[in-house]
């Protein structure tokens, strides 16, 4: 997914910049209908319908979060049982060594903590995000006010594609590669 990272050193492609997200979505739909594949888009804010237009399935984030929550909670509960009830039971205020109700707050917090951390890192993994000092986008306006469409051309039909993109409303079209 490094298609928007400058300098672009992949196969020949085309970058179209739109000023209206609706046009971007429409352009994607149109391009896909015409058989373009490997399209990618970048926008300054999440554009509704974009992922559907690009043909992405539902995100797998919820599964990460759910799994993490239950894992964390189970570990939290088990740890309390082991620590207070098993490895060194101590008579505290005449109460049972272990009781479930008293363990619930920590069990819950453990689940939440695990879920939060895993979800956070899952986004990083999914987007291949990691800190770098010299990151540059193909066009710095992409995070500001332009909606970019990346069209791999493979060096064929370059002019037709450019024309098509301009027709679909692209304000600017750049050749890449």
């Amino acid at each position, binding site marked *: 997914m490094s298609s928007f990272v400058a300098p672009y050193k992949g196969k020949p492609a085309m970058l179209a910049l739109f000023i209206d997200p609706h046009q971007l979505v429409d352009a994607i739909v149109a391009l896909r209908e015409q058989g373009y594949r490997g399209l990618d888009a970048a926008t*300054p804010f999440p554009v509704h319908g974009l992922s559907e237009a690009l043909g992405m399935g539902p995100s797998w984030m919820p599964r990460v979060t759910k799994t993490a929550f239950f894992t964390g909670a189970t570990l939290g509960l088990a740890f309390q049982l082991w620590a207070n009830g098993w490895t060194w039971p101590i008579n505290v205020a005449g109460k049972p060594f272990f009781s479930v109700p008293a363990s619930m*707050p920590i069990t819950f917090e453990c689940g939440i903590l695990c879920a939060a951390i895993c979800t*956070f890192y899952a986004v990083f993994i999914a987007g291949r995000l990691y800190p770098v*000092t010299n990151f540059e986008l193909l066009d710095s306006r992409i995070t500001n*006010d332009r909606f970019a469409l990346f069209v791999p051309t493979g060096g064929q039909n370059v002019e037709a594609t450019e024309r098509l993109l301009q027709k679909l409303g692209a304000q600017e079209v750049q050749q890449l590669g």
Partner: protein
Amino acid sequence: MSRDNTLQQQADAARREPPMYRADLTLTQVTRDISAPITGEPNGWWWAGFLISVALLGMGSAIVTYQLNYGLGLIGLMHPIMWGTYITNFVFWVGIGHAGTLISAILFLLRQRWRTAINRSAEAMTIFAVCCAGLFPLLHVGRTLLAFWLIPYPNFRYLWVNFRSPLIWDVFAVSTYATTSLLFWYQGMIPDLATIRDQEKRPLARKIYSIFAQRWKGTAADWHHYESAYGLFAAIATPLVLSVHSVVSTDFAVSTLPGWHDTIFPPYFVAGAIFSGFAMVVTILSILRKAFHLEDYITLDHMELMNKVILGTSMIVGYAYILEVYMAWYGENRYDWHIYVWIRFLGTYAWAGWLTIFCNVLTPLIFWFRKARRSLVVMFIVSIIANIGMWFERYVIICTSLAQDFLPSNWGYFRPTIFDIGVLVGSFGLFFTLFLLFARFVPTIAMSEIKAVLHHPVGEISGSPTLEESHV
């Protein structure tokens, strides 16, 4: 009625509402306005505020150092009243923090579009408030250097902690809360940091923003997972935020002390936290929007909505006050009666009790008037009064209950010393230092969300409210 019809009706209703933002705002303009404090030079007001805050922080640090050197005897704690202003401050700051999470998570889940203008700064407030809150238990324990013993870390003696103690619940809840809030905040900020990165001309700043922006490109897949995760975070944070103050309230509710041992504490504390948190947001934003010229983004409509929240939670809090007295009466517990009625409202601590009532129950009533809700001066004053009131509410709960408990021979009276006050003031120094740094170096408003709302006045954007109404 089918779901579609309902959605349609809501959408229609939303269209009838006046737009939240000026019609002529463009994406470019949004970026320019919001990143102006970052890319430009700070003005005199910022410097003045920053220097004052740092001075207060320095004073607080000096006092803390002194206290760590000589011992807790410097603050006003005494034999029956073993928890004083430090725990008051702890609960106060944790409560302040709640508004941020509430705005970013709960209002998100409730599809409240207006949150976009304030959620970033409210979340920042949460983080910094939790930072301040987290300090106090450390300062408060007798042996600060050994406070890490509250964490169940592996050790060769197999010596674990007492998972039955609400203080351990606190450790887990507050640290989870701090971690989750920080991650939530940071994750929501990455696209904006990328925007700044791409706008930034200065090489060093660009490098730094580049590091924090984590190669954010804004591709469709990025946004796809990002939005999903954001929603999940909101779903996690919502029960979390409710649990945190509930757990904090168990520090008191689980004990035997009259005035503490009270089953209504969890919801009562959460309501109080929201109340004080929103008041703090109002206080801060009414300054921020002026100082950074963000009136176009944080509009009077936003402020009014928050004032409505303040009014609502203040009434919940007032109800809890009444209920406490009622239960003391109905329960026929002479110790409870002594604390709830005699001490808090008729006796030794009547000043604090009535101050609390005045600040938290009576003053916010002015928000029944639309004029007051939309007056910056009024809301600024009321929000400050509300926060004073909420500080004293915790003070009343903690100190009055401890001051006169079961055996009259133990009774005492808490008198804060200059150290108590100094550390509280110092914590405000810390808070505002962090907040001013935040306002200087981080986009204070979620640009991407504002942009989304601008471009889709009626929610088609999944990252922000789909169908919304601007009422609470």
